[in-house]
């Protein structure tokens, strides 16, 4: 079977590029893969089935959407709400009418009015606060032979949207933890709390900063490490000042770091925090990395994150008590090394069982064979 593969690839700064870098070698050992690129999208013309990876970055996925519209294939839906992608491909190209039409086509006149209000600044953008209510996936999936998702949550959301073609749920692959390099963190700081992989408002960095501010009252040597792109829009200095935290003393703010340093920072962390609201129906690669490294992980209790077993991660619901429970959870994990260790061991065990890359590649082959109408043999 020959597979045409459409995805952002390294060195593009994208989680889906990293995902493909992990999956492609395992897939290529099982089937013949022809990798298309932005500059040579037609290089996958003679194939049995095409595999399109879709996520919300319009720069990374615009050309893939165009190819999908031209030729049908299996879509890997990395996020079940693609409103931001559609907004980027319309508003980002100076075409608000196309955006409003897209919203109206899927969500009717009410959706259009809300979208219009958000364009006029009367409401926050729909993709920021109500992405799952207005996911804008139907038109994008019109040419899909079937969809691959990573979670039951995403599968259910598609079913609720009335998607009728085949949906395969294939676990997200984990990187094999190797020897951790030097994280470049100051010596003697404990506990090290980190949130890695994107400094966005959706990752609830302000809420984490507030909880960390409380933790530091009992653990003055605690250090918070934030790494990832997007920190500019958070106005971190003003937020730190309000909480009495000092940049570089209490909180290290790193931009996007290379993969090796990312894993080294994670390995050096005592507690990895990955909060989220609203969810776009994504599966978090940084959470999977932290699980594979055997770390104590704190996540928001929603979407895919809720599917993680209770004894494997600590979950914090996004509700009126989020800050209190997050602070209490950080305190517990900071003061009780045994809880951290047991949680970490359960996490590593879970990742090796559920997120094995070979198992993921086998599942892809089965799905692609089914879509191509063959038996999956290479």
């Amino acid at each position, binding site marked *: 079977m020959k597979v045409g593969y459409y995805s952002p690839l390294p060195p593009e700064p994208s989680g889906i590029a990293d995902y493909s870098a992990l999956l492609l070698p395992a897939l290529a050992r099982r089937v013949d893969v022809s990798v298309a690129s932005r500059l040579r999208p037609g290089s996958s013309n003679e194939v049995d089935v095409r595999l399109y990876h879709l996520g919300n970055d*319009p*720069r990374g996925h*615009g050309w893939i959407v165009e190819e999908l519209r031209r030729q049908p294939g299996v879509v890997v839906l990395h996020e079940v709400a693609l409103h931001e992608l559609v907004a*980027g*491909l319309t508003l*980002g*190209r*100076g075409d608000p009418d196309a955006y409003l039409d897209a919203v109206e086509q899927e969500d009717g006149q009410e959706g259009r009015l809300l979208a219009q209000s958000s364009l006029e600044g009367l409401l*926050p953008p729909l993709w920021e*606060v*109500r992405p799952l209510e207005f996911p804008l996936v139907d038109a994008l999936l019109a040419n899909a032979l079937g969809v691959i998702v990573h979670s039951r949550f995403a599968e259910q959301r598609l079913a609720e949207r009335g998607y009728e073609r085949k949906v395969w749920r294939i676990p997200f692959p984990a990187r094999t933890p190797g020897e951790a390099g030097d994280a470049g963190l100051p010596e003697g700081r404990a506990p090290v709390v980190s949130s890695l992989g994107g400094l966005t*408002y959706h990752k609830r960095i*302000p809420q984490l900063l*507030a909880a960390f501010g409380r933790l530091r009252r009992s653990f003055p040597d605690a250090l918070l490490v934030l790494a990832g792109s*997007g920190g*500019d*829009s958070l*106005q971190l200095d*003003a*937020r730190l000042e*309000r909480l009495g935290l000092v940049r570089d003393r209490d909180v290290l703010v790193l931009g996007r770091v290379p993969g090796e340093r990312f894993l080294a920072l994670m390995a050096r962390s005592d507690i990895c925090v990955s909060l989220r*609201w*609203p969810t776009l129906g994504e599966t978090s690669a940084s959470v999977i990395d932290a699980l594979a490294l055997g770390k104590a992980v704190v996540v928001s209790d929603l979407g895919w994150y809720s599917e993680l*077993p*209770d*004894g*494997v991660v*600590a*979950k914090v619901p*996004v*509700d*009126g*008590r*989020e*800050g*209190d*429970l997050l602070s*209490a*959870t950080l305190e*517990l994990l900071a003061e009780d090394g045994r*809880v951290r260790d*047991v*949680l970490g*061991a*359960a996490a590593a065990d879970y990742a090796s069982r559920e997120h094995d890359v070979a198992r993921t590649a086998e599942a892809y082959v089965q799905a692609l064979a089914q879509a191509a109408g063959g038996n999956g043999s290479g």
Partner: protein
Amino acid sequence: MTHQPPREDDEIAAILARLRDEVYGRPPSSGEVGAGPSVAREEAERMWPVSADRPFLEGTGSRGRARGLGLRLPKSVLRKLMRWYVEPPFADQRRFNAAVLRLLDELWAREQAKDGTSRGAEADRDT
């Protein structure tokens, strides 16, 4: 029937569940609002630290990217030149916004506490 000792991760799950029950059983601390993420409160939290230092945006597609990159340097220079003029009022605005949010949260916490007290008193009367 033999008694199986609890697995360690079950034990940790029970500890985390107890912690959650404990936190939900005590009054909220200042800054904890509402029963769920209020869109308005979330937006206020996002927007209060106003600043002229905003991220540089670019359109999609190669033309948008080229335009964005081309404008980055002049925008950056203009921002630096105007900073002395626009930043002081923004700093005042940030302090005001943060104070209003604190006030709202304190009022909310006070209301919640009052609600809890009156519900407790009603329950006492019923028993």
